[in-house]
């Protein structure tokens, strides 16, 4: 049955140690193809550009990444048509992105950031200048990665979780209903 809602990954600050294994895994799986990244650090020739962002705050740390909003402000803000919804996920096409920053401003989570764009193992220069081309880097839920989101798999403390909102809502519904049975407090 086709899912109606986009899945997403969320972090848990009570478990996260801030090790950035998630960022590194994210970068790795997204650059194994076009940027020839292998399994070891030595194979990397491009800047580390993650699609989720380990964030330190006053009470701890956790990775922040895209929620794949159903009315995605980034998508609605992008006038270039570089952000689209593919199989329920909000996806940036780096080739189309002109770096206008509208999506960054629109996203209330800070889940999208302009970062260097690399191709074929090299950072891409802009046309008309030597400056590095950038793109709106954000979580694509590892849409082309077998085994699903690499960050979830990479976390040594299970501080990241892939949420299937529909299934989760049903599970919680059942829990809430069965709590009634356990307490019989409707009487």
């Amino acid at each position, binding site marked *: 049955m086709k899912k109606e809602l986009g899945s997403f990954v969320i972090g848990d600050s009570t478990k996260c*140690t*801030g*090790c*950035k*294994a998630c*960022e*590194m*895994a994210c*970068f*790795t799986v997204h650059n194994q193809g076009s940027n*020839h*990244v*292998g*399994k*070891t*650090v*030595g*194979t*990397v*020739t*491009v*800047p*580390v*550009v*993650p699609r989720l*962002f*380990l964030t*330190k705050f006053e009470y*701890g*740390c956790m990775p922040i990444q895209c929620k794949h909003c159903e009315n995605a402000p980034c998508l609605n803000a992008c006038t270039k048509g570089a952000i689209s919804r593919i199989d329920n996920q909000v996806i940036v096409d780096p080739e189309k992105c002109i770096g206008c920053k509208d999506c960054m401003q629109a996203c209330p989570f800070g889940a999208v*950031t302009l*970062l*260097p764009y690399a191709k074929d193992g090299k950072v891409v220069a802009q046309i008309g200048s030597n400056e590095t081309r950038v793109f709106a880097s954000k979580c694509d839920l590892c849409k082309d990665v077998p085994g699903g989101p*690499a960050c979830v*798999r*990479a976390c*040594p403390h299970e501080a990241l979780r892939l949420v299937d909102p529909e299934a989760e809502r049903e599970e919680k519904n059942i829990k809430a209903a069965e709590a009634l049975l356990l307490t019989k407090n409707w009487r």
Partner: protein
Amino acid sequence: MIVAIDQNICTGCRECAEVCPAFAIEGDQGKPQTINTDRCVMCGQCVQKCKSYVSILTHGKEAYEKVKKERNIPDSVTEPLFAAYPVCNLDKVKAALADPNKFTVVQCAPAVRVAIGEDFGDELGKLTPGKLAAALRRIGFDRIYDTNFPADVTIMEEGTELVKRVTEGGVLPMFTSCCPAWVKYMENNYPEIKDHLSSAKSPQQIGGAIFKTFGAEIDGKTGADIYSVSVMPCTCKVFECGRPEMKDSGYRDVDVAITTRDLAWLIKDLGIDWASLPEEEFDQPFGIYTGAGTIFGVTGGVMEAALRTGYELVTGQPIPNVDVTPVRGTEGFRKAIIKIGDLELKVGVVTGLKNVVPVIEAMKAGTLDLHFIEVMTCPEGCVSGGGQPKLLMDADRAEAYAARREATFVHDRELPLRKSHESPAVKKLYDEFLEEPNSHLAHHLLHTSYCIK
């Protein structure tokens, strides 16, 4: 400083503290960590673990180049840099190579050849001794030698020592001394058991001492002409070669050690295309080695190599099965009883330094009934060393170590000679230079006493 943590980059996740066998990493959760150098054994496992990279986002656009400079890393490097890092001595190597008065000799540890290809995109654990030799030659070293050769020599010295201790009533159990982090750990924490340590130096240092003596002689040089470089899977080897006692050749036995990763940088820095390198041989005579020498790279390998030769030393007969599988494996502590003629040799293998503590405690309590114990600091021996290619994702770690281990055993199986004492280079060394294992000269050059803290 051999291994350090960059205060500006560290996020304080303390994942490194989880893998540190020496409890040397100090700091509050969430705050940058520091390494207590009094405790640190320089194994580099923290370096392998650390994922806290120099980030454009967190540290700014300029940070990467700045950090690279601070760490003496070649300009050409583009790969991610992390908070925990080892010293890089490539500048010294480059300087020596550029110095026409230096006769540069390089040796290469067994674990390097099953891992270095990974940093060029080869599959995990690809066996590449031929390319390795070719690369070193193109870098410009005058002699391309191999640590596998001194590993064979180590077996002759250490094996003879063991047989003596067992048959003549020496201090038992005897511990191997190949792993410098283990030696350092013992010095730091258990100096009282130093007599249990084999007096034989590690293969790196045995190689160093030979290259500047017998080796110099062969090439018509003096020890003073020779600049000796070693390529190691290990960050602690950099420390070991700098130990004050390691100058029995009359010079610094090994002038500088670099890691597998350093060598990969150097190859790239010099524009050598790894993929198109041909297969070449190591140089004669110290490039000749047996399977026994090469399995030093994996946990249990020193023990297995010692048994292959020790059996023959004691019984005069070749060991019935050259694959001594009871000592293989990856468990932290394994025991086996090996029948050698009438002797039942009880041996133990420790891998992962944390696992040695209960063994030592048992020994001190008198409950440990063993003759000979191999100790390696890193999780699965040198193939998993702190200077090896670093995995981007820990999920690949198990696969990488297994592949490197398997490649090592494949190499052993495919070599024509698999016992150290059968090596023609070893024979030549003793025939022409040292006379016999544990000879006076051998003792002077190839043995040492530790715990001089």
